[in-house]
C-alpha cells in the first residue's frame, strides 16, 4: 500500500512564486524515505500541503489511499509532523505540550498522560517534564518535537530537518530511535540537508530542485549510478608523482595524501595492487566526502 501518493502537485504563492511545479511522488508503506533539496527547493511547501498548512494550487495527494482534501480528519490523524522550526508554546511545560497535542488528536486524557510518559522517557525528557519549553536546550527541543508528533501513534512520520543544530552524539541516538520506529512499521519521510543522514537511514530517496523532482528511486540504485568514487589515500611515503595503473590520481595539499578515483567497474583490491606495484604503503584510506553528496552535487550541476 502507498503511504503517500502525490500526483502533479502544484503550488503558486500569492506573491507569484511557483514553489511546486507538478511534483509526482510515491512513498510505500513502511519506507524510510529521504526528500533532499537545497533551501527553497520546495521541500517544506510539499510537506505543508500534506498536513494542511499550505493550500495547494492543483494536483492530488493521497495518504494511505485517501485524498487529503476529501478526508482531512482521517489523513491528518495518520500523520505525525516534526516541523523544521520550534512551533510549540515556549511558556508551556514540556508534559503539557505533549498531552495537549494528544488532546487535539482526540486521545482521551488518561491515555494521553500514559503515552506522554512513555515517549518522554524513551526520548530522555522525563526529568524535564515540568520545565517550560523555553528552558530546554536545542537538542531537547528537537526531541520534544518528536515526542509531540508521535503521541497519537501515527502510521506516517514526517520529519522536516529533524537533526538541524543537533550535536553528533544526540544525532546518532536520534537516528537509532528513528530506525527502531521504522522497524516497528512506521513509514518515515525525512527531509534533510545532511546527506550522510539520508544515506545512513533511508532506503529510498527523491531529490527536489526548483519545485520539481529531478531524481527518485532506491538509495542503492541511485548510488550505483555514480560513475566513480573518490578516495583519499594517505601513504607512508611522500610520492612526488603518482602513477597507479588504471587509476586517476590527484595530489592534495598534504604531500602524503592523494585523491584517487575508483570507477564503478574497478575494485579496491585492484587499487591496493596498483599501490603495491609502486612500492608504496597505505597508512589511511578514506572516502572523499559522502557518496550521496557527490551524486547530489552531480545532479544539481547537470
Amino acid at each position: 500500500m502507498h503511504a503517500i501518493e502525490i500526483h502533479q502537485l502544484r503550488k503558486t504563492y500569492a506573491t507569484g512564486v511557483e514553489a511546486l511545479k507538478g511534483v509526482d511522488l510515491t512513498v510505500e508503506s513502511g519506507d524510510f524515505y529521504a526528500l533532499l533539496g537545497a533551501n527553497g527547493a520546495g521541500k517544506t511547501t510539499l510537506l505543508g500541503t500534506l498536513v494542511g498548512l499550505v493550500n495547494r494550487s492543483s494536483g492530488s495527494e493521497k495518504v494511505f489511499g485517501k485524498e487529503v482534501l476529501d478526508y482531512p480528519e482521517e489523513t491528518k490523524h495518520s500523520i505525525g509532523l516534526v516541523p523544521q522550526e520550534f512551533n510549540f508554546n515556549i511558556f508551556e511545560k514540556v508534559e503539557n505540550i505533549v498531552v495537549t497535542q494528544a488532546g487535539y488528536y482526540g486521545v482521551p486524557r488518561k491515555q494521553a498522560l500514559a503515552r506522554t510518559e512513555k515517549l518522554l522517557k524513551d526520548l530522555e525528557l522525563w526529568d524535564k517534564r515540568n520545565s517550560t519549553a523555553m528552558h530546554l536546550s536545542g537538542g531537547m527541543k528537537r526531541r520534544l518535537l518528536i515526542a509531540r508528533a508521535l503521541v497519537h501513534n501515527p502510521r506516517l512520520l514526517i520529519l522536516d530537518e529533524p537533526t538541524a543544530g543537533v550535536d553528533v552524539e544526540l544525532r546518532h541516538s536520534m537516528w537509532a530511535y528513528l530506525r527502531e520506529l521504522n522497524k516497528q512499521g512506521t513509514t518515515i519521510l525525512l527531509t534533510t540537508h545532511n546527506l550522510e543522514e539520508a544515506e545512513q537511514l533511508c532506503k529510498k530517496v527523491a531529490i527536489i530542485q526548483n519545485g520539481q523532482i529531478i531524481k527518485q528511486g532506491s538509495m542503492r540504485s541511485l548510488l550505483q549510478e555514480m560513475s566513480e568514487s573518490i578516495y583519499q589515500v594517505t601513504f607512508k611515503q611522500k610520492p612526488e608523482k603518482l602513477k597507479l595503473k588504471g587509476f586517476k590520481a590527484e595530489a592534495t595539499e598534504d604531500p602524503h595524501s592523494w585523491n584517487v578515483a575508483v570507477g564503478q567497474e574497478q575494485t579496491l583490491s585492484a587499487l591496493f595492487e596498483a599501490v603495491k606495484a609502486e612500492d608504496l604503503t597505505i597508512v589511511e584510506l578514506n572516502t572523499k566526502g559522502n557518496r550521496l553528496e557527490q551524486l547530489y552535487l552531480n545532479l544539481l550541476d547537470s
Partner: protein
Amino acid sequence: MNFQRQKIALETIVRKEVGRFTRIWAQTLLPPLINQSLYFIIFGGFIGSQISEIKGISYMSYIIPGLIMMGIISNSFANVVSSFFSSKFMHNVEEMIVASVSNEVILLGYTFGGMLRGLLVGLLILGMSLFFVPFTIAHPLYFVAFAVLTALLFALAGFLNALFAKKFDDISIFQTFILTPLTYFGGVFYSIDHLPPFWQTISKFNPILYMVDGFRYGFYGINDLNPAFGLLFLLLCCIVLTLLNLHMMKKGYGLKT
C-alpha cells in the same frame, strides 16, 4: 467527523484557555476588578452622591450593570484576541491545524474560553458591587441571556480580529479606537433619555447601548430601548460573526499560506 475525537479536542482547547487565564490571574482577573472598583468609588461614591436618581434608582445602582458589562465585553474580547494571535505569532496554532481539529471546534474552543473569562470577571464585579450597594435581579432570564450573548459576541469578535491581525499593534487598534469609545458611549454612565434628540438617534447606532440597556433591564426592570429587540440583535450579530469566522478559516485566511 469523528464526534468523540472532536469533543476531546474541544475539551483540550477549553482546558488550555482556562488554564492560561487562571495561571496569569494577576494580569487577567485582577486588573478589571481594580478598575471597576475605582469607577464604583469615584463615579458611584464621590460624584454619584451629588447626582439625582435615574428612573427611580440611585446613580451608584444605575451604573452597576454597565460596569459589569464593560468587564464582560473587554475581557471576553481580550482573552480570545491575545491568546489566538499569540498562537499564530508563535506558530503553535499549527499544532491544531496539523491535528484533525475542525475549524468549528477551534472557533468554539477559543470562544468558550473567552466567554468563561468574560463571565468570570462579570461575576467577580457583581460580587464586589454588593460591597457598595445591595440589589435584587428583576428579570433573571434577561440578565443571564444578555450576559452570555454579549460574552459570546465579543469572544467571536476577538477571534476575527486575531485572524486578521498580522502584528501585535493590530490587536490593540480595535480595542483602543473602536471598542473602548463605543463602550463609554454605550450608556454605562448615563441614560440616553438625558441626551438631546440628535445624540439619542446617533446613540441608537451603537450596538453596545442595546447590551448595556438590556442587561440593566434584567437587573432593575428599567430600560431606554426594547430588550427583546436587543436580544434578537445580539443573536443576529453572533450568527453573522460565527459564519464570517468559519468562512475566513475555511479559506485559510491568517492561518495557511
